[in-house]
């Protein structure tokens, strides 16, 4: 048991005592104490008992179950009072510390090789995500934070479920049309221009500066102009995405096309290989790690670009349009619902690109985990 784990366990025990002793909250005029309900006293007592029984040597999975139970109790207790007292925050702190202890112990076991079931490693980020959601829910509802400042996750979720058709239409307009089309064109053109630049020194001097010039243009200036050129619907957003994704791909691809070493180029020359044969058999495969770097950077850039571009003229659908109008109506729940959808879409998009990268550049030392 490491020093950190000992500190976490002792702190958890201290907060458990505080959670039992201090008032949980106020309901009407009455003070709610932990012993008013069964769960609110049972769980901290259980924490104390287990920590004492195992003298700080809780098996990781027991502390994991304990943390999950703690999170459930924290959420359940929200319904028991109108505003939270110090006991409730101590309860939340206890649950957080027990979850932390679990993550710490599990990662230590995984790192030392004592635990062979690698999938258990997924539990650590999952537990962290759950802990953040529970703390968010408890903090906003227990602390009576106004919805305009920060709605609780449950409120956002309810909003998502209630507005599924709207969110789906926005997602289709912004992501499936503007983002995907712009992403494909921007990356494609970036790669082709990189090859053209590589082919001709004249273009290298001419096009690369123009590329950096385009990338330096401010998004808020470009978006309205694109609306003038390509109309209110998604093509103008796709055009903004093209401009945003073009340059990262150009720079990365130009760098990637130059990573081959002299010996590899001499080898191709000794076969009297043509320019295109060398490009497709040597230089593009060698550039793949760079190209995927750009694809990953662009996967998130594209979404940001499309959403912001919708602030400058759009039909009455789209994630950016919805956010800007919902803010105007102080409908912050809907803004958060759109943010949740875009965060999910962005993460999945990035994840898919990263998975393809692993499959394509399996040979690269950074992925196969070897040297040279």
């Amino acid at each position, binding site marked *: 048991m490491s020093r950190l784990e000992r500190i976490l366990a002792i702190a958890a025990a201290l907060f458990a005592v505080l959670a039992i002793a201090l008032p949980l909250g106020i309901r009407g005029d009455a003070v709610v104490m932990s012993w008013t309900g069964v769960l609110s006293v049972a769980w901290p007592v259980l924490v104390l008992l287990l920590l004492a029984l195992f003298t700080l040597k809780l098996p990781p999975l027991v502390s994991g179950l304990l943390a999950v139970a703690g999170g459930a109790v924290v959420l359940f207790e929200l319904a028991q009072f109108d505003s939270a007292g110090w006991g409730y925050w101590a309860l939340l702190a206890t649950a957080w510390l027990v979850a932390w202890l679990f993550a710490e112990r599990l990662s230590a076991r995984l790192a030392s090789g004592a635990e062979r079931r690698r999938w258990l490693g997924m539990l650590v980020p999952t537990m962290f995500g759950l802990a953040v959601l529970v703390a968010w829910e408890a903090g906003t509802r227990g602390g009576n934070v106004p919805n305009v400042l920060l709605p609780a996750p449950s409120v956002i979720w309810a909003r998502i479920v209630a507005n599924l058709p709207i969110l789906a239409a926005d997602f289709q307009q912004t992501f499936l049309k503007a983002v995907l089309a712009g992403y494909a064109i921007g990356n494609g053109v970036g790669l082709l221009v990189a090859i053209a630049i590589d082919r001709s020194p004249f273009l290298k001097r001419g096009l690369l500066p123009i590329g950096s010039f385009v990338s330096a243009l401010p998004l808020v200036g470009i978006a309205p102009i694109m609306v003038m050129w390509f109309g209110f619907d998604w093509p103008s957003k796709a055009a903004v995405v093209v401009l945003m994704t073009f340059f990262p791909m150009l720079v990365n691809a130009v760098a990637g096309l130059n990573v081959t070493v002299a*010996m590899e180029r001499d*080898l191709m020359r*000794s076969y*009297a290989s043509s320019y295109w044969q060398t490009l497709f*058999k040597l230089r593009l495969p060698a550039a793949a790690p760079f190209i995927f770097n750009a694809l990953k950077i662009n996967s998130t850039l594209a979404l940001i670009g499309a959403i912001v571009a919708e602030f400058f003229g759009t039909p009455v659908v789209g994630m950016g349009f919805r956010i800007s109008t919902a803010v105007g109506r102080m409908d912050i729940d809907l803004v958060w619902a759109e943010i949740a959808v875009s965060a999910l879409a962005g993460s999945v998009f990035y994840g898919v690109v990263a998975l393809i990268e692993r499959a394509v550049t399996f040979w690269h030392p950074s992925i196969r985990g070897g040297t040279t």
Partner: protein
Amino acid sequence: MTAVVSAKNLGLTFRTNDGDVVALSDVNLEVQPGEFVSFIGPSGCGKTTFLRVIADLEQPTSGTISVNGMTPEAARKSRSYGYVFQAPALFPWRTIEKNVALPLEIMGHSDAERKARIARTLELVNLTGFERKFPWQLSGGMQQRASIARALAFDADLLLMDEPFGALDEIVRDHLNSELLKLFAATKKTIAFVTHSIPEAVYLSTKIVVMSPRPGRVTDIIDSTLPAERPLEIRETPEFLEIAHRVREGLRAGHSYEQS
């Protein structure tokens, strides 16, 4: 019979920011079909540069050179040589068989032809069974053997080898040397081999070209008297030691007017 390589008064001067560097000066040499010619000398003597001139990877600045009766450029374009570099230079995204297939793909051989040649050349270098492995899954010696297979795959008559075993340890090197001799006997190719190891040069060659630096030039050409059949033990015979001695003398002569 035309010489495979014929150089007359060949010279090559590199222009660098520090002034001109004479890499080759007045080199005269003929390599006949079926010869195993080693180029030996200290670094900077131009042995690699000479090999690269044959391969049309460097352009001479004076004199003439022909490869199979053509200019080096025409010879390269008609794919008349295979080149083995100091490092394997295998592509990590290709399996061993795909790496050997690389020149065949570029030269447009049919699928069936490719398969047959891959199987044959991998067998020649004793790599049968490793077709589906990636280069980074093999040892350094196996990687270099795969790169030799790649150079052999398209059946050029001339094999240019630039210190192919320089990075390998001596035990692996001995082994690969005797395998290379077997391969030489089996394929009847002409081999030009750059090395800085005297035993390696004497053991392998039918002709040894001794070179010296500043400026890079040929100081001695020794025809080997060793028999074609050469077990590793031949390296302890008086005949072998005598040739080695003459190579050493040639190397020393090249250094004689230096201050060191």
